[in-house]
């Protein structure tokens, strides 16, 4: 309860404030929906929203999982030699700067309408923070410990698995936290173009001037982002609590 209270207070204040602002006519309901209208949209369209949420969740999760897998592997490869890093890291930055909305139509051409395009979109926007953070983590191993491993004749593979990777975990997890939110955004942008899911609900509701339903769908998207974020925090707590200051304190 003590942990729930701090985030609950702003929630209640903002919700009541918005409700008041709209009900009193200070802001028109067709510009900003009253929280009660959003809640009603959530209830009225629950079946449609639940089905859309399931699709978006699946695509965002798969895209995120791919980002994690490919991003970490790529970073390990980059960290293996200065030359490789110089050769390929600039191209990783491409993913950071790519305006997803511009390439999303191309994704449709490459992957067709539907889930594959949505997953690709989630993957493209979420991979860079995984690469960047993992690489930083892998390159900042304590030199004293690295010397120790070398002194004992540990192979590069063993050094990676037993020392460099575990030591990089806090940074990797930070990358994953950033990537989790981006994967949800990527999935929804992909759905604008590729169809299905919450992105499609937002698109349709926007055409119908249903701001309440747009916000209902956006709320569900944030819930999805929060859930992913929570999942990573759980992994973080489980893996870091015995040795890293960021988790040990709790």
């Amino acid at each position, binding site marked *: 309860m003590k942990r729930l209270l701090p985030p609950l207070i702003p929630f209640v204040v903002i919700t009541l404030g918005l409700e008041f602002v709209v009900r009193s006519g200070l802001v*028109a309901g*067709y*510009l900003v929906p009253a929280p009660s209208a959003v809640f009603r949209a959530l209830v009225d369209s629950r079946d449609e929203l639940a089905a859309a949420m399931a699709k978006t969740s699946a695509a965002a999760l798969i895209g995120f999982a791919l980002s994690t897998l490919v991003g970490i592997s790529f970073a390990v490869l980059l960290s293996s030699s200065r030359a490789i890093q110089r050769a390929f890291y600039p191209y990783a930055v491409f993913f950071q700067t790519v305006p997803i909305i511009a390439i999303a139509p191309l994704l*449709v*051409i490459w992957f067709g*309408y539907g889930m594959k395009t949505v997953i690709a979109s989630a993957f493209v926007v979420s991979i860079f923070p995984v690469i960047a953070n993992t690489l930083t983590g892998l390159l900042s191993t304590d030199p004293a410990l690295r010397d120790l491993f070398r002194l004992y004749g540990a192979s590069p593979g063993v050094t990676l698995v037993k020392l460099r990777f575990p030591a990089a975990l806090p940074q990797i997890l930070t990358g994953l936290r950033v990537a989790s939110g981006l994967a949800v955004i990527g999935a929804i942008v992909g759905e604008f*173009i590729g169809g299905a899911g919450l992105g499609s609900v937002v*698109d*349709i509701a*926007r055409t119908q001037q249903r701001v309440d339903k747009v916000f209902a769908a956006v709320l569900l998207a944030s819930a999805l982002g929060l859930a992913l974020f929570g999942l990573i925090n759980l992994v973080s707590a489980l893996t870091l609590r015995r040795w890293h200051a960021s988790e040990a304190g709790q």
Partner: protein
Amino acid sequence: MNRREFVSASAALLAACGKPAPQQKTLRLALNWKPDPQFGGFYAAPYQKHGLEVEILPGGAGTPTVQMIGAGSAEYGVISGDELVVARARGNDVVALFAVFQNCPQGIMTHASRHVASIGDVVKEGTLAIQRGLPYARILEKKYGFDHVKVVPSPGGDISAFLRDDKFAQQCFVMSEPLQARHAGVEVRVFPVADLGYNPYTTVLATSGVQLKSDPDHAKVIVAAVREGWRTYLDDPLSTNTRMHELNPSMDAATFAEVAEAQKPFIEQGELGAMTAERWTTLIGQLRDLGDIPQGLPAQDCFRNL
């Protein structure tokens, strides 16, 4: 509002904001797409001759012009008739002043090689790219069902997916995408949405009820300028097309000329821009039947012929 009320209201307004009379300030006219022939008359209009300073704000996919008008971030805007009705039902007091397209120029484009006989046959197989939120998409669905066709989001004006797939149909402006497809060597068949009995006014100049009440004469002036602009554009679109092409180089000069010619029959029907209560009543009834608006609303509140 009678005249005395109007004068005192205007005086109060002027006193309150201490700005020059509204006629002298720059007015914003928000478009819902990039500069192209469907807005030709707005670009050709001699605003200055009528003592107006108008800034045209080009839009893009999803520019919420109807909300912008309601929120006052643009004094005037271009919207579609159905958007206006739905907005009014949601409490956004928007009023139509000038309807450019008397017949709805939207349609469904298919490959001619499919030999489909009617709009109903289009949804029997293949893929249909359409904005599902649009009323005509739902009328189509209600009438024929979407069980046998894969419905995907509309790619805007992009026809690349269409060109690659014979079984791909997409929503279009009947004088725009079909032209592009023919240029690309694909024969097409187009079914106007009006075939479904759905024919709202489109590319409609609208303003907010507040703006209209605060200065009805002003709306009259802008409508006169716009009507003159459309007359000019219909008679000789070349110089305006050149200007719009500079603003929107993605459409080539030849296409500008072709579209300007092709859209004429949709625009020139009696007095330019004029609307009737019957047409609005029909539209309101259709949107009510679709459930887009909870109940009917008075047609005469939707528009003013100035």
